[in-house]
């Protein structure tokens, strides 16, 4: 067999292998991106749930703490800002603010012991606690996915494929607020 044929066969093999690698990497990148979208939609569901709870909460507590006008206004306007946020950084800062305002709101409501006898309020309090937890857990799941995807996009050799098809690293979803003591912080 001529040396040329061997070279051709080896070259063809490398090309086929390379193509297979590109296809496989592309598919896994797309898969990761879809999982990321799923994780994000879980966060959105929970944030939406929180927005829906706030009017109920305000309505139920107003009769007990009518003179806490400032607190009610703060919650209502923070909710409005969060509901109007579009970009990731806007959502992140508006929701962080809402978390802080809500935890201060609940702290103020602690001063009204008769609220503890109101079944509506207790039910809403449980819903809010659970929604805050779900946001935190969904955020960790999302950020785990971001880490996976970004590693793949930035590390050799998968970064070559990612560059070819224009995959961009995803942004972490951070909620930072000094007041949000109840919400877990996670570092990697």
């Amino acid at each position, binding site marked *: 067999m001529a040396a040329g044929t061997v070279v051709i066969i080896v070259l063809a093999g490398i090309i086929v292998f390379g193509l297979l690698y590109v296809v496989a990497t592309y598919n896994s990148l797309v898969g990761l991106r879809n999982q990321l979208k799923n994780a994000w939609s879980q966060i959105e569901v929970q944030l939406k749930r929180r927005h829906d709870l706030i009017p109920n909460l305000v309505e139920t507590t107003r009769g007990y703490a009518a003179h806490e006008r400032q607190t009610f206004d703060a919650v209502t306007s923070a909710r409005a800002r969060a509901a109007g946020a579009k970009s990731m950084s806007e959502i992140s800062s508006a929701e962080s603010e809402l978390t802080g305002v809500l935890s201060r709101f609940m702290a103020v409501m602690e001063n009204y012991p008769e609220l503890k006898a109101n079944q*509506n309020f207790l039910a809403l309090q449980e819903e809010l606690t659970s929604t805050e937890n779900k946001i935190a857990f969904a955020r*960790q799941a999302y950020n785990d996915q971001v880490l996976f995807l970004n590693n793949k996009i930035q590390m050799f050799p998968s970064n070559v494929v990612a560059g070819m098809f224009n995959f961009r690293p995803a942004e972490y979803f951070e909620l930072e607020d000094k007041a949000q003591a109840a919400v877990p912080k*996670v570092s990697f």
Partner: protein
Amino acid sequence: MFWSIIAANKRKTVLLIAAMGLFLVLLGAAIGVFVAGDYHPYAGFAGAGIAALVWAVMLLASLYASDSVLLSISNAHQVDRDTYPQLYNLVEEMVIAGSLPAMPKVYVVDDPAPNAFAMGKSPKDSHICVTAGLLAVCGRDELQGVVAHELGHIMNRDLLYMTVAATMLGSMLLISDVFLRSFRYSTMRYTSRSRRSSGKGAVVILIVSLVLAILAPILARILYFSISRKREYLADATSARLTRYPEGLASALEKIGGSTEKLVAARSVTAPFYIVNPTKQSLHDSVFATHPPLSARIKVLRSMAGGAGYLDYMKAYIQVTRKRQALIPAADLKGAGKVEIRAANAAGPAAGLTAAESRRRAGDIMRAVNKFAFVTCQCGLEIKLPPEYAGDTVSCPRCKRVHSVIRPGAKATGAVLSASAAMNASAAVRPESVAQDYSGPGHAGVQQEKLNPGKWQTITCHACGRPYEISPSFGSRKLVCSGCGSLILFSPASEAVHHKRG
């Protein structure tokens, strides 16, 4: 995810099924030869065939019907979001934290002893059960720890192995019992025919089969119980990592272990499923113990100082148990991130309940699960009506006020949750907690309120500050405050006022 542990569990299950099959066939053959070997040359094969059939039936049963059987012998009632919102929420939270593919079905077990267990062979089809007693004594964080532990078993595929083992153990006990009965019967015959038979061979077979029959249950137990110990530590590790709050589970385990109530529904076959061994027969460290000692589990959780991740659990485990052997395979720890411990949830635990009080709370939880209607009268008497109660109204035996009965399931419009759900949430609230020193806007004379028909509404007596929940079916035009006797008038239409105890 403990991938290698999941794989090991699957492997072990297959091995167990095969080993049990072999064992049963041998046992069946021995019984066949012993009982009828003198008359029928193929009795051994017949015995083996029957045993194989039994094995196949048991296998099918364990794979397809075991969940419902085990759930029903455990008195479990399925609940949804409306019957116990907090429990349902906690399961949802952990499903999100663990990225499970499907929401497990949630059950409350009719039992005042605090405990919990899970069922199901894969994360796509699973069941989480907690007892009413657990709901009565545990706060939010504690309950979350327990739910996450059970989810840990589901994620690690422990239940696949345990379900198969439980069914197999059940069948072994049954078969050896049958054999020992037939042995007692045939020894009587044996003396009369021993002179005619070949003697030695029969005696050997007798001894072998007797040994087998005695060993079978013991072997099964050792196999099955010893395996359920390490998995409890692993599920604890998963719980700490998912909740990021190891103290929640630690304090729940303490409460479960400290309870004097005995679990009624527990059987030795279902015992290994529970988070804490319900039969309490376990000698501390024997081979027969279904669970590792509770004190060690609590100590490990409380020693997790640095964080809530798997590595932190491992460190604490080695420090407490002084075991060299790794709890979590190194391959599963790769890429395990650092997880910080979170702060406690604001909703505090129900601490310091007496035995009678927690029993009563457990009773109320079971009533809510069983669709009882709750009516609280203005006079302070609480009336609990079973679903069989036929009337639409109930008269208070204390003050003769007539109340309309709102059936659970009839959703309160406008409110997030149904009346029965709210009932649960307030189970902890006692009349004393309503503040007498409330200084609301004071008005002399008649108080006027607008009625919002079809909605739950909260109003407060302006004179004494007593709060009232107006039910959606409220149709009266006036209300006399039970606290101070002042009159409250409503602009538009029944008499269902749900007074917040006060």
